[in-house]
């Protein structure tokens, strides 16, 4: 194996492992250590207006080409793994040509890119989240792998418990949003099919980050070049190029699509391909033109089918907008407890640390990192079409605990700013409202006040139902200025299935910072 390829594979495995740990760590311990791995992802950095990261990534690409796609992007590494298995299988079947040169499908590639940029500018985040590679990958991990990890954790803890040890919190595993689940499933199917058949088709035809980096990589200081004198035209490199960017007929490499996997370097028997400085004397004499061929309009069967499957899946997902809530098993010895229903909310609730609803949804790439990190069952992808897959909060399973700031620690895009638990009460993400028709003080004539007792900021005042009667029952009222919208009242309200006190999102979260 070529030394450069070894380094690439080693780095890719390290980065990919780090991202997986970040996405799957249910304890929150690793968030502080590995959070940067999400922040250096391209699109999150763009949305966070993180100039340093963007400049760094562009510089990296200008120096070495699309290393990013082979090392930093978890979806890219995942596709390499799929393709690796596929190629091994083809080789066993004596297929020595797993890959072939294919011309750049310019119309599709730049068409998607233009649409993507337009969507980004216009704030159509659904489309952005659909194609952003890191988001797509996070979604798949959160939907398919996290449940397995959590179940495993619960199982392990059962064993610990037998030994009298208590280490892992038991975690609910639940379907947070059916549409998002289906979209993640469709993405997974599409990516796997494309990678299985043709390696990096996704990255070179659909991925907007890949296209963007391609603008820079064609100018990179270091690039692989074919030595036309040494090349015997055996096409071994072409058949090993998962980006399908080596054209032996013209002895050129399309550097806008090359992801610097270095597979070709070791494959060449004639020492005819080198990764080298592009602007030296050598470069000028040997191969000045490196641009790919004109775009072929014919769709290769692989990418076409994959795309159709993907789009069909998406349409199916968009059509279904129901949320799967699961019932809880109950002991016979206890009073039955009805599951809570999600109340109507005029405005969505977005996490503490988000400046406003608008700002949150404008920055979020729907990578699901915060959803995976939320230990209280609060965050889940929205099913609302306007912000499909982007998270929102709801309190039927738990509430936003005062000591927890985990989502703010992991958000790579700046949609949720990093806050401390002390800063948390400076944000007012929602406002509680009492529905007197449901409050048990009024419906059952019992005393209660659980909402007031459990409110972490003292925003609920119990007042007499009948002010003239000194013995009167007391009912809850909300002191609007104090309420931060954490949902403790909604979650702990005994009225079921719909709470008598529910929270509505506030549009702006940091209007008066003095509140605490």
């Amino acid at each position, binding site marked *: 194996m070529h030394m450069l390829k070894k380094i690439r594979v080693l780095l890719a495995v390290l980065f990919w492992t780090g991202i997986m740990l970040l996405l799957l760590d249910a304890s929150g311990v690793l968030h502080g250590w590995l959070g940067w791995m999400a922040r250096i992802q391209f699109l999150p950095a763009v949305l966070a207006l993180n100039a340093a990261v963007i400049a760094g990534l562009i510089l990296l690409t200008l120096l070495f080409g699309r290393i990013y796609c082979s090392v930093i992007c978890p979806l890219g590494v995942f596709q390499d793994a799929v393709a690796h298995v596929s190629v091994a299988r083809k080789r066993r079947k004596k297929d020595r040509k797993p890959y072939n040169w294919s011309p750049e499908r310019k119309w599709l590639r730049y068409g998607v890119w233009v649409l993507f940029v337009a969507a980004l500018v216009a704030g159509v985040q659904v489309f952005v989240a659909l194609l952003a590679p890191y988001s797509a990958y996070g979604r798949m991990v959160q939907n398919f792998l996290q449940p397995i990890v959590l179940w495993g954790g619960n199982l392990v803890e059962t064993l610990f418990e037998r030994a009298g040890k*208590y280490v892992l*919190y038991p975690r609910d595993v639940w379907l947070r949003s059916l549409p998002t689940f289906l979209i993640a499933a469709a993405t997974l199917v599409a990516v796997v099919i494309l990678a299985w058949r043709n390696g990096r088709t996704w990255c070179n035809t659909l991925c907007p980050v890949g296209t963007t980096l391609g603008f820079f990589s064609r100018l990179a200081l270091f690039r692989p070049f074919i030595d036309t004198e040494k090349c015997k035209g055996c096409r071994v490199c072409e058949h090993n190029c998962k980006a399908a960017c080596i054209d032996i007929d013209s002895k050129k490499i399309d550097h806008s699509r090359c992801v610097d996997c270095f597979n070709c370097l070791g494959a060449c028997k004639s020492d005819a391909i080198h990764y080298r400085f592009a602007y030296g004397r050598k470069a000028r004499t040997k191969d000045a033109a490196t641009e790919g061929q004109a775009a072929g309009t014919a769709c290769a069967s692989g990418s076409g089918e994959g795309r159709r499957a993907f789009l069909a899946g998406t349409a199916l997902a968009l059509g279904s907008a129901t949320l799967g809530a699961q019932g809880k098993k109950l002991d016979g010895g*206890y*009073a039955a*407890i009805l599951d809570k229903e999600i109340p109507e909310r005029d405005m969505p609730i977005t996490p503490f640390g988000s400046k406003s609803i608008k700002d949150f949804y404008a920055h979020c790439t729907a990578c699901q990192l915060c959803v995976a990190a939320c230990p209280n069952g609060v965050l889940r992808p929205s099913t609302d079409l306007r912000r499909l897959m982007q998270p929102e909060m709801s309190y039927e399973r738990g509430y936003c605990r005062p000591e927890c700031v985990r989502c703010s620690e992991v958000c790579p895009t700046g949609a949720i700013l990093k806050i401390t638990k002390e800063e948390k009460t400076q944000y007012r993400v929602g406002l509680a409202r009492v529905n007197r028709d449901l409050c048990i003080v009024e419906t059952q004539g*019992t005393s*209660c*006040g659980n909402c007031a007792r459990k409110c972490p900021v003292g925003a609920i005042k119990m007042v007499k139902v009948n002010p003239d009667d000194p013995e009167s029952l007391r009912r809850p009222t909300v002191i609007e200025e104090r309420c931060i919208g954490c949902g403790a009242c909604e979650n*702990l309200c005994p009225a079921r299935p719909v709470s008598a006190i529910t929270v509505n999102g506030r549009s702006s979260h940091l209007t008066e910072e003095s509140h605490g």
Partner: protein
Amino acid sequence: MDRRQFLKITGAGSALALAGCAPGKSAPETGDGKVVLRTNPRNGDRTSLLGYGCMRWPMIKDADGKDIIDQEAVNEMVDYAMAHGINYFDTSPAYLQGQSERAAGIALSRYPRDSYYLATKLSNFGDTSPEASKRMYAESFRDLQTDYFDYYLFHAIGRGGVEAFNQRYVDNGMLPFLQEEKKAGRIRNLGFSFHGNREAFDSFMKWHDEGTLVWDFVMIEMNYVDWTHADPKRNTNADYLYTELEKRGLPVMVMEPLLGGRLANVPEAVATRMKEREPDISPAAWAFRFVGSHPGVQVILSGMSTMDPIIENCKTFSNFQPMSEEELAFMEEMAVLMKEYPMVNCTDCKYCMPCPWGIDIPGIFRHYNEAITDGTFAASREQKDYRRLKRAYLVSYDRAIPTLRQADHCISCGECLSHCPQSIPIPRELQRINRYIEKLKQDTL
């Protein structure tokens, strides 16, 4: 008794067995393997000093997911008990979601009726009407498959004073009815089980002295902690109750000798003192011996839910050694030590259940008490092991109690208050525990 406790006792049991083989100080001898009997001074009944309380049998799920008593386990345990001389069985129509009597009936009807003494109660806590009360009485015969009760009790009287007693037994005519039943031979002994303050108890004793209402026996809560350290506002010290009963020659039946297991699984400081004195005696055996050392005690009930405590208790009672004065004083010392721990005085009797809002009241108390007993209670952030203890408390809490049944969901409606024989201010205690949990979670302890 839950599994943790069970494991502890099993562990203690096997340690005991091992130590028994070692030379040096000998373990207590097991005699002929049968528990000692005591003669009832009023009627000559030869009852076993260790009685079987049928309130804590294991429950399993049936096909529909409902809790049912594990009859197979019950039969096995009753067989062992009978084989080792336990001949007094105490149940109630209210126990174990109303299934205890039936299970006891199934297990005991396999033996001749005169080979055991049967005690049950009129547990008319809800509907006190004569019809409902008589129906409950009649159903006890059916479920226990018998045509007479050896000992029949007015269940848990004293709380609410004479007034509550009148409401449950006098106003509805049940008292004269039961006295007639006694004359007819269907009840051999009529007594009451007591929870409450001294005033109420004195009234019941006064009636007895005046001859208006003569008792044949009384059941009280008695153990080395309650002996002189009962909550003075709500309960009465057992030494007072016992002395009053002994004075009148009334047989004393004892409940809660282990406080629902809390005296079997004692805080480490207490256990250490006990083990220093007698390395081979378990805390449970100390507690039983304390109660049994009082000659007026007729039967000590133990709600044994698995085989291991039965085996251990049968050993304790088969060669029963009353305590010396000095040992009794030692127990008082242990009681003082016990009182230093802020445990909730819950005996896990489950009378408060089901809570209408779904809270697992005894579960929350048990979990809290166990953390204190096991020494895994995080007391302050300054503590060396704070992080580990905090995590252990919160994780085990989430595992022991489903989220929706935890203390933060208690709305303090007070429905439970009237059911608790220990008069625990349940909502207040739940709020106290919840505040503790909040402090743990928010690191403000």
